[in-house]
């Protein structure tokens, strides 16, 4: 029953996506595509952190794994869908390795391990510059279709991938495994008593969360037509974490909010700095830091107003509206 509903809504989402991409301007389509790419990563991360209780500061690096695999596959073989699949597989493998280590660690130690991953993977590209071409990065070549604008095509591909990820993850969440994830998060001893293999659940959770992050990274590379380590710095990992907390931990709809903010906030800051006629010196200082400040401020405000994230706020409001309607 749940599966059917998920299918129906994915199909509706697909139709809606198609309709919207036909209407949007190229730049908005590009932003929509970027949001879809981020959504893959935030959806995976929110499941891991919200439902399984594992924190990861390394999802930005997992995106980098996907992105570089995408570049190699695209420049080598050149089949877009195969490249996306390969990127996901490669990230799954890396996720499994990190997951095995992560399952043995708790709290700050786990954060430390994933932080190391976030720092190490971009550093790889500089150390093995013969292969990864250092900070300049690699081009990602592809042949766009001739029938529709390139940005529309990118939005459709990325949006479609994100829908698929949401569909699969929604099913995982409502499955037996989803319940096992939550049981492990709430109380490992109780979960073990209930016959749940705690370590296996944790490793699998990490893998399930890594795969869409890899896909998201591959999509980012596909959108940018290139991949460079600067796109996958520690800041990205922190942004992803911020995004899912602001959106609402453990909630797929919250992940959508998070992805939306990741695209909208930098854009908003841009228009803000343009509106202010600040001295060049001040504008220069603001330019790099304002986005970070606004993100931090948003986090503080959201945590004060709605500790459960934006999605909980939406739920509360819609609940109140419904209740109000019943009273009338």
């Amino acid at each position, binding site marked *: 029953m749940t599966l059917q*509903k998920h299918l129906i809504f994915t199909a509706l989402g697909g139709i809606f996506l198609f309709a919207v991409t036909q209407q949007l301007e190229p730049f908005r389509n590009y*932003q929509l595509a970027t949001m879809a790419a981020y959504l893959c990563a935030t959806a995976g991360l929110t499941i891991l952190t919200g439902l399984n209780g594992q924190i990861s500061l390394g999802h930005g690096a997992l995106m980098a794994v996907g992105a570089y695999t995408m570049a190699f596959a695209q420049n080598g073989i050149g089949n877009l869908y195969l490249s996306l699949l390969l990127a996901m597989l490669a990230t799954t493998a890396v996720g499994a390795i990190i997951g095995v280590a992560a399952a043995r660690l708790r709290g700050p130690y786990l954060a430390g391990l994933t932080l190391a991953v976030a720092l190490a993977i971009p550093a790889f590209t500089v150390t093995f510059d013969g292969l990864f071409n250092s*900070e300049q990065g690699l081009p990602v070549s592809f042949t766009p279709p001739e029938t529709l604008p390139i940005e529309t095509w990118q939005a459709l591909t990325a949006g479609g991938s994100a829908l698929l990820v949401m569909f699969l993850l929604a099913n995982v*969440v409502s499955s037996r495994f989803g319940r096992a994830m939550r049981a492990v998060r709430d109380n490992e001893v109780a979960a073990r008593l209930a016959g749940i293999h705690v370590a296996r659940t944790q490793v699998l959770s990490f893998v399930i969360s890594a795969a869409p992050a890899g896909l998201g990274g591959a999509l980012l590379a596909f959108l940018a037509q290139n991949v460079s380590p*600067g796109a996958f710095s520690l800041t990205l990992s922190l942004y992803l974490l911020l995004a899912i907390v602001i959106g609402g931990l453990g909630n797929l*709809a919250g992940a959508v909010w998070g992805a*939306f903010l990741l695209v909208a906030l930098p854009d908003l800051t841009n228009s803000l700095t343009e509106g202010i006629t600040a001295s060049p010196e001040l504008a220069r200082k603001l*330019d*790099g830091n304002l986005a970070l400040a606004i993100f931090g401020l948003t986090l503080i405000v959201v945590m004060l107003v709605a500790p459960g994230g934006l999605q909980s706020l939406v739920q509360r409001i819609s609940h109140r509206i419904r209740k109000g309607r019943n009273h009338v």
Partner: protein
Amino acid sequence: MYRTFRRGMIIIAASALLAACSSGGGGQPAAPKGDSTGVTATEILVGTHQPLTGPAAAGYSEISPATKAYFDFVNAAGGINGRKITYKVMDDGYNPANTQTVVRQLVLQDKVFAILNGLGTPTHTNVLDFLKTNKVPDLFVASGSRSWDQPQKYPHTFAYNPDYTVEGKILANHIKENFAGKKVCYMGQDDDFGRDELAGLEKVLGASGIVERQKYVTSNPDVGPQIGALKTAACEVVVLATVPGFTALSIGTAARLAFKPQWVVSNVGSDYPTLAKQLGANKGLLEGMLAVSYLPSPIDMSDPWTAMFKKIHDQYNGKAPFNGNAIYGLSVGYLFVQALVAAGKDLTREGIIAAIEKGGFKGPGIAPLRYAKDDHSGYGGQRMTKISADVQSYFGKVFETDSEGGPVIEFTGERPAPPTSSIPS
């Protein structure tokens, strides 16, 4: 869960709608003769990506305000063919990932006529394909990578700086003639900037002529290991293919290690006022540093071009220092206006590209500008400079060469006097 999922869909829908609403209309009026995106009867909108923040901001962040100052000057005089130039500068922090975002914004959202003087080798390399797909004139890239000069592959892209291989050959030529028998080493940025420069050095000195090669990345400000390796190799002459921040870091780090070779620095990392500001009290370390340049010297007021630029600079960008970066930015502005004038009244993207390919621009630079149908490289030569007693000045001949195996020869072409109005006509 179904509920959550449904809400997810609603949010996607809502945000997409929001995006749809905020994007607004704004179709392009298709001119019959060509693409005149970004051009109206009264305005020309051009954009650029610059490192206003980040590891390359030192020095380079002063370039775009100078270009803007020249445009302000031209606008105050009525613009070109009745059109004023609006220069939209976007900060990319010298991070290729940001560059592709801001350039998309300039092209797709702001609908600029052209990208002018986009700065940086690693940054700009990654937007070449995008600009080509959208047929956007990509004019006078602020870097000397050889990638810009590929008229077959990137018909819309034109270089500005002498390419790094040309520069490497001219530096190596000087080293060969003046430091024969000395141990020559190299340290450069780990991208096409460094690689092209090294290729130029090797073309003249031979691969065995470089004793030690080191590289750095801009995300890691610790150059101790590299400088240590150069010291261990007992280098006597070190060629730096570095951005200003890393020139200063390298020279400063070397001094701490009591390593004082003859520094020979790429033009893009050699502006004396910029380096002196970075090194502060230790600016004395720059004494004797050799470099190259091809634009008027900012301190030589007897040069009529310098005098002309200084006047404009003082009026429109007075708070900024008048150094090599300012001269560079002003010169780029001058060349762009030259191209606009050559493209004529009916300004289109095709028209300006044809005008630049026609070539024949003479301007502030002391070396030849090479633009032609099959040549999209910029300046084709340089002249050596030396810092002595806090003054960076030219010496010797102006040299020109190609980026292949051709010889390094003297350039004897004449440079015209600047127009009295300070605006090309």
